[in-house]
């Protein structure tokens, strides 16, 4: 399927998921991600899969747990307030070491917030969201093509490491239409001897569980999980560098803001300012190494975010606060304009 088709970001996620072998979807209507559910409701009956509109986000994520425990690929999607409700289940998925894909097409918050795009669930996604020590793999697409390809990648990583992979998109990415190629030649399958498939009276029973009443046992489980996380931080970091070779100012942005920033960077370059960008594609694991390397040659960093400065913490940690990090942000559903980003670049990187 190398041919390109014009799709909404939300639809691209849905079709890519099906192509990746996900035949079970559970959701609940919430703007701006409802197209995922609508698409699934049309497609799943035709391929013998499951589309189920649950009674709540809480029920939907627990249905995901049910399918995941049987070893099959499964997903749910929602937007910010709905993902808060799913956080209980995401913690259980982590505690049970179950793979699943969770999509968050973010809107403004906190509370009911608004329905316009936002990136203000960065903390929730990358630092936990639910209770306990755990991480999700967090993938931040910046195009409709990446909405599809990172969905396929997300299922792969979830299965490989037995954990939640999250697509952290925003309302813009979900709603915008772009040509997309649904190339799924790289779908991998994994053995799942732990899955609940019925013993057939031929093996010991499998138990999917997150309860460990003996503290020694629970401590070991947590240590083991963090060994896995260490391997992921070593092996699965994804990022894009843009004009970083001679950059003196490094913009850091993900998702839709990285595209706005690219325009601003091009304009700044035309004005002679040496500016580049590091775009994290995985928000967890965070691209610490390229940022640390950039800190050795750049004089300043600018985080462009649609939140009050959440990723800025990770950037400062990655560069050990060696250089100043400035914030260029809009919130509440507003998107920074290229002019606003350019103004910040000129302020930080202009002639001294």
């Amino acid at each position, binding site marked *: 399927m190398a041919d390109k088709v014009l799709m909404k970001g939300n639809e691209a996620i849905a079709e890519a998921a099906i192509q990746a072998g996900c035949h079970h979807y559970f959701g609940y209507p919430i703007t701006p991600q409802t197209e995922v559910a609508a698409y699934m409701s049309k497609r799943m009956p035709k391929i013998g899969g499951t589309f189920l509109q649950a009674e709540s986000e809480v029920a939907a994520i627990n249905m995901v747990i049910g399918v995941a425990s049987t070893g099959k690929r499964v997903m749910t999607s929602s937007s910010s307030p709905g993902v808060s409700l799913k956080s209980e289940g995401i913690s259980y998925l982590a505690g*049970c070491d179950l793979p699943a894909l969770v999509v968050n097409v973010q809107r403004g918050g906190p509370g009911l917030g608004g329905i316009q795009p936002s990136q203000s669930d960065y903390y929730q996604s990358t630092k936990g969201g639910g209770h306990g020590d755990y991480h999700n793999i967090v993938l931040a697409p910046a195009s409709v093509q990446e909405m599809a390809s990172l969905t396929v990648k997300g299922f792969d990583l979830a299965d490989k490491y037995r954990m939640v992979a999250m697509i952290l998109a925003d309302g813009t990415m979900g709603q915008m239409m772009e040509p997309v190629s649904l190339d799924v030649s790289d779908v991998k399958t994994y053995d799942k001897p732990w899955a609940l498939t019925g013993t057939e009276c031929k093996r010991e029973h499998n138990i999917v569980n997150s309860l460990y009443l003996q503290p020694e046992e629970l401590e070991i489980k947590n240590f083991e999980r963090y060994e896995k996380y260490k391997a992921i931080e070593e092996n699965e970091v994804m990022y894009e560098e843009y004009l970083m070779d001679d950059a003196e100012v490094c913009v850091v942005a993900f998702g839709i803001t990285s595209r706005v920033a690219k325009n601003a960077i091009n304009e700044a370059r035309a004005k002679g300012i040496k500016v580049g960008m590091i775009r994290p594609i995985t928000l967890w694991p965070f691209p610490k190494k390229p940022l640390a390397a950039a800190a050795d040659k750049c004089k300043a960093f600018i985080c462009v975010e649609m939140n009050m400065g959440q990723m800025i913490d990770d950037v400062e940690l990655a560069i050990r606060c060696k250089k100043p990090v400035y914030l260029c942000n809009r919130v509440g559903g507003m998107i920074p304009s290229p002019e606003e980003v350019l103004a910040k670049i000129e302020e930080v990187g202009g002639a001294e």
Partner: protein
Amino acid sequence: MAVVFEKPKSLTDAVLHYCPGCTHGIIHRLVAEVMDELGIEGQTIGVASVGCSVMAYNYFTCDFVQAAHGRAPAVATGVKRSDPSKIVFTYQGDGDLAAIGTAETVHSAARRENITVIFVNNAIYGMTGGQMAPTTLPGQVTQTSPYGRDVNTVGYPVKVCELLSNVDGAAYLERVAVNNVKNIKNAKKAIKKAFQNQLEGKGFSLVEVISTCPTNWGMTPEKALQWVDEKMIPYYPLGVYKDIYAKEED
């Protein structure tokens, strides 16, 4: 020598952690006997809940998943939708099913989800040390209703079978007890029917089992069994509350 009594194959050798006199052990055994008799142990996937039976996964030989508090019917929905050829049951207490999991209970029934629900009602939160449950009787003293359940301030007990009998999707609802031999025999028949229904694709089947909690009721096991007859059954009458296939079978 003829074997006249043995442990069901579907129970493991693990020692039950339940308090002396608790009737969870009887109910576990009934479920296991039914699994043996229907020959479904190898195809069954259980869903444990949160409460005293949280570790049910250690006691049954079938595959098991442990669900968050109240979410067992949603988890069971996922398991069943993943592979409808499997036999899927939840084992839940009253706090789990009738308080925090009310939505999951009602909607899995409304969808006529083809699962079996074993609902153990002992009118109290046992695991956390005896707090007021949605099924705690009016006037009943618990840790969080120390002056007795006052219906004027905390409301009335939830009668699950009566409530679900108004849900069109529910296929089979029966309330039983395990406080004497006659009731135990009836309970087994109901549990068997609830599993049989699933095998026949008949949809959502729930058996409410009136159980005891001598520890948190502050009674001897014997007195607790009497209390079921004197207090629980009058408030929660036993019987079939719904059986949408009853007429065609007659």
